[in-house]
């Protein structure tokens, strides 16, 4: 099995939590799409995690624990509630089975999609697609770790990830076609 990053699971709160600071901030900014709100989210996440650190079980996944706190904090924020309310219909499409994608290779259009276009497309994704894509591709979390973070079964991780990728491809295609006109 492909081995992903293994994090230390013992030490002081600061030792464990501060190395995740940049990643958590990046994730918070992607979720909230606002700098001030991202800072609030991260600050509150660290406060909650510090308070609850005594209940954290050594040997379990600290990174997933921190991301879960951050995500829960976001979900109860105003923009989080708004975002999840808007994506309820998409959420219902999630199923345990892996969606099959049989599209033709899009090597050419991806070559033409610059970084800004990809960032805009990620930003336009519904929040439940955005977060799973970032956890997988940017944070390089395993499906198991994503499942722990989002509190969903691994089967749902696979199907949601597949749909998120398909949605991103569609958004990129639309943007590139729009740019050609």
């Amino acid at each position, binding site marked *: *099995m*492909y081995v*992903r990053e293994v994090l230390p699971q013992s030490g002081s*709160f*600061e030792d464990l*939590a*501060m190395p995740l*600071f*940049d990643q958590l*901030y*990046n994730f918070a*900014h*992607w979720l909230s799409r606002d*700098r*001030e709100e*991202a*800072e*609030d989210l*991260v*600050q509150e996440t660290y*406060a909650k995690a*510090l*308070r609850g650190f*005594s*209940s954290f079980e050594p040997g379990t996944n600290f990174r997933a624990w921190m991301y*879960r*706190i951050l995500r*829960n904090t976001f*979900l*109860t924020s*105003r923009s989080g*509630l708004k975002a999840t309310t808007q994506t309820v219909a998409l959420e219902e499409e999630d199923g345990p089975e*892996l969606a*099959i*994608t*049989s599209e*033709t*290779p*899009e*090597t050419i259009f*991806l*070559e033409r*999609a610059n*970084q800004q276009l*990809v*960032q805009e497309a*990620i930003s336009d994704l519904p929040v439940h697609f955005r977060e799973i*894509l*970032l956890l*997988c*591709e*940017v944070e390089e979390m*395993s*499906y198991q770790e994503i499942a722990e973070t989002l509190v969903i079964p691994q089967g749902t991780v*696979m199907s949601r*990830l*597949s749909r998120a*990728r398909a949605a*991103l*491809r569609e958004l990129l295609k639309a943007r590139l076609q729009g740019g050609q006109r």
Partner: protein
Amino acid sequence: MNSGPTGSTDCAQWTTKLDLYLDGELSDQQMLAFDAHVRSCTSCAADSLSRVQMKRSVKAAGKRFTPSEEFRRRVQRQSGAKPGLPWGFGLRWGMAGALAGLFLAGVLSLGYFSNHRTIEEATVAGTTYNEIADLHVATLASASPVDVVSTDRHTVKPWFQGRIPFAFNLPELQNSEFALLGGRVTYLQQAPGAHLIYELRKHKISVLIFQARPEDSPLPGSASTRPSSFSTEAWTQNGLRYFVIGDAAPEDIRKLAEMFKTAAKT
């Protein structure tokens, strides 16, 4: 998809696992088998290339936001603090809320609960109460404390359907001085719950309801604080944990708690 030398049926079988392969989620044996197939199938090789390119693009584009050094230093200072100190209010929640929270958490965690509670009980429940106090103060300090605005329990209760994984009863308020203002979804120790706001003669009272879990610290039952500060009531009933907190008189907090206890029996 075009078929490779191994045939279209074979390719379809591999394609369903292509993302698992590229995400490193297959066993070593399956990875080797996939490697061999991709080397012999131009179609799957092209599909893999396209998906790898997408993964790289998202990875590069996703590393976009960097925190300021000033913000990092601030959080680092706070992360070095001893656990239990309530510094976690949002930056824009205002000094009033932060100071009130500091005071509240201090009062609650230093053992101003009921005289019947032991110091050990107060310490065990302290973290929970800190968080309950945070939720109450932070919500009141917010510009929009509730997400469902209604005085009608028949509007507020259904609003929570699908938002939290349990149901609860709200008390009938006719002939009482309490008024329901609304509710919102909240989280306590990573578990979702309902946060209801009531008003009594200009006093705002929070009622928070969560599912009881085996790992929860024991609740102290009645936990009224000094008359000059916040009062709380906490209990577990029918698999749910209830917290009532506010700056109203302890007997009023108790009265609202009793109404919830009665409603839960119906």
